[in-house]
Structure formats: C-alpha cells, structure tokens
C-alpha cells in the first residue's frame, strides 16, 4: 500500500489495498509494443528462422509485484565444444523498452541456465531466444499476469 503511483492508459484500473498502491490515471504514450519486441528480436536473430523449443522460461504465471520477478531461462543443450548455447536474450512486450537481458556463454558454462529478477510493468508476454553454436535460434514465450506493475515509468519519486 502506499507511496507509489503508476499509470498506463491501457491498464485496467486496479487497487492493491484499500487506498493503497493506487494507479494514477495518467495517459502516457505507449512504450514498447509487440512490434517493438519483434524488431528487437530481429536485431539479434536477423533473418534466421526462430523455432519454438529447447528454451524454457520458468516464471510464476501470476505475480503480486512486478518490481522484482524471479525468472529462470534454461536451454536444453549438452554444452560441449561442438554443441552449445552461445547466447540467450530475453524480451518483453509491454515494458518501456523490449530488451531485458542478453547473456553470452559457452561450453565452459556446463549448463545453459540463468536466473535473474526482472521488472514487469504490466501483464504481458515474455520471450526468450537462444542461439546455438550451429547458428540456429530457438525460443520460448510465456504470459505473466501482474497484479501490481513495476514502477518503470513512475511519475513520482
């Protein structure tokens, strides 16, 4: 409850607790969009085909506070010199900016799995893509419902 006000015109009006963490109904220009996310993904993958599979995003489907959401991204790979994951990239649809994290790794990682905590401004789709050593791209996407968005664009400090 309390001190924070965030708002996006397209977000449902929501009240966290009586009088608490309330949304100011300010109209704000849309920031990232599904199109912006696609563009950001294409910047990484170029024209390559991105196949669903091998990548797994582990995140709770329902999150109470978008300020710090634990996310694990793993890729099914033997992580040998001949066959490994070169990079992992995570994107969101509705944060002010689509990029979340880019990771470079190699066979020395042993396991292609990273965990971090991310901000989610709103209920949205998250996509992770991985590039393997053979150049192929793989992906996973999930939808996460946020009851209280992150103050990425908070108007008050």
């Amino acid at each position, binding site marked *: 409850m309390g001190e924070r006000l965030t708002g996006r015109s397209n977000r449902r009006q929501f009240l966290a607790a009586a009088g608490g963490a309330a949304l100011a109904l*300010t109209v704000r220009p849309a920031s990232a969009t599904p199109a912006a996310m696609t563009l950001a993904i294409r910047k990484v993958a170029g024209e390559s085909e991105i196949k669903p599979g091998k990548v797994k995003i582990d995140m*709770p489907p329902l999150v109470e506070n978008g*300020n710090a959401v634990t996310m694990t991204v793993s890729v099914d790979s033997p992580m040998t010199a001949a066959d490994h994951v070169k990079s992992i990239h995570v994107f969101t649809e509705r944060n002010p900016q689509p990029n979340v994290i880019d990771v470079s790794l190699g066979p020395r990682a042993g396991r292609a799995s990273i965990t971090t905590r991310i901000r989610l401004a709103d209920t949205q789709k998250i996509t992770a893509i991985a590039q393997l050593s053979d150049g192929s791209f793989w992906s996973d996407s999930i939808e996460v419902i946020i*009851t209280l968005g992150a103050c990425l664009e908070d108007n008050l400090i």
Partner: protein
Amino acid sequence: MNPRALRLRPALILAIASAAAFAVALARAEIPLEQRRSSYADMSRDNKAMQDDDTSNPGMLSVLDGEALWSEKAGAANRACADCHGDAKSGMKGVAARHPAFDARLGRPVNLDQRINICRSERQQAAPFALESKDMLAMSAFVAHQSRGEPIAPPDDPRLAPHREAGRAQYNARQGQLNLSCGQCHDDNWGKSLAGNTVPQAHPTGYPIYRLEWQSLGSLQRRLRNCMIGMRAETYPYGALEYVNMELYLMWRARGMKLETPGVRP
C-alpha cells in the same frame, strides 16, 4: 494541496468503494496466539526463496553495510560501536526482540533506531542518523539481524504499559477518511484477499524489511505510514511517539514469534 494528494484522488474513490465492500466484520477479536503467523507464510515461493537465501536477499546488502559501520570510528569521541559493544553477534543478540524499550532519561519508549541514535549522539558524539536514511536502516538491519530466529520478547516494564495501551487504542480506533481501523483488516480479515493481496496479520517480524514495492529497505514506521496513507488517515513524522506506541503494541501482539530480519515483503 500538494500534487501527490491531487494524484491520489481517482484512486481514493476506488479505495472507498473497495474498503466499504471489504470491511464488513464489526466484531473485533485479538488473534488467538496459536493462530498467529508471519506474512512470510503468505508469500509466493519465489519471494520466500528471496528471503531465505542470503545471497539472494537484497536486505543482506544493507546488513553488510551496517556491519561495516559497526566498526567504523565516528564522532568527537572517535569510537566505533564495536569499541564498546564488541562482537555484535553476542552483544546485540536479542536486542531487537526487546525493543521498543523504556528510556528513563527521555521518560518515553524508544524503538531500536532511536536507541541506536542515542548511542550515536551520546556515546560517539556524532550526528544521529537521519531516520529512514541508508545508514540508519543499515545499522538497524545489522543489529536486528543478530536476533534473527529469536522470539519477540517485549520487556516486562510497567512504565511501558500506558504506551502499549495507547498503541492498542490507536490500532483499534477507526480513523481516516475511510473510517477504518487497523484491526478491521489485520484482526478481522487476515487471510482474505484484498484486490489481489493477502491481508496479513501485521506482525512486525521482519523489520527493517526489503519491500519489493519500495525496491529498498524500509522501517516498520514506513510500513505503518503506508497503511495509514491507504486509510487516508493522519500520518506522523518518523520517530513520533504515536508510531512508537503502535510498535509497542504490535510487538506485544507478536510476542514469542521469531524475528526474520531482513524480511522480504511484496
């Protein structure tokens, strides 16, 4: 009216509607001792893990800051806390669990932050930490962390009794534009969902807490202030006796429960 108040307006209308539908129970009863639980129990698996794993708990960064301050010489006396108190592990164990405590010289109860500041100004002859500042919270987190796992043990001091009663009265009084009392939410409706949040029993077991909402550490008084803003009730300056009285009552309500500092809360 400041801009913040203005911005709250539309929310307030929603708040009143929501609170009116919610606060139906009138009978007020203290929670039976065996039914009490920390709001840790209501947290998601990930948030529990964030609190449990020290390398993942951002509150531990402040505990480490406090540890550094503990042995830093300060003030005209050029003394460190450690110079007088030695190893905090033994010297400060259980101290957070018995605060607020009565300060005879001031003739009033003081909470842990205020107790630390008494040593800052009197023993170190240094400027007291500003309440809610990074250093204050770090020191407070470090001292309270020494009591992690210790049961809350309010002092059996008759001088505290009238203050605890004042705190209890305030906790049970309807206040603010929503005409709600703390107890209506925390005693009568705990465990229920309020617009997506589980209403906790409001036990002060984790303070100072790392609150995801704040993206930082904050004191119990900051948490109380948040609830009071939510109730559209009058808030007090940090350190006010009204807050300390409420802390006394909350600690008594939570007597025997184990401290978790630094707690993580949504």
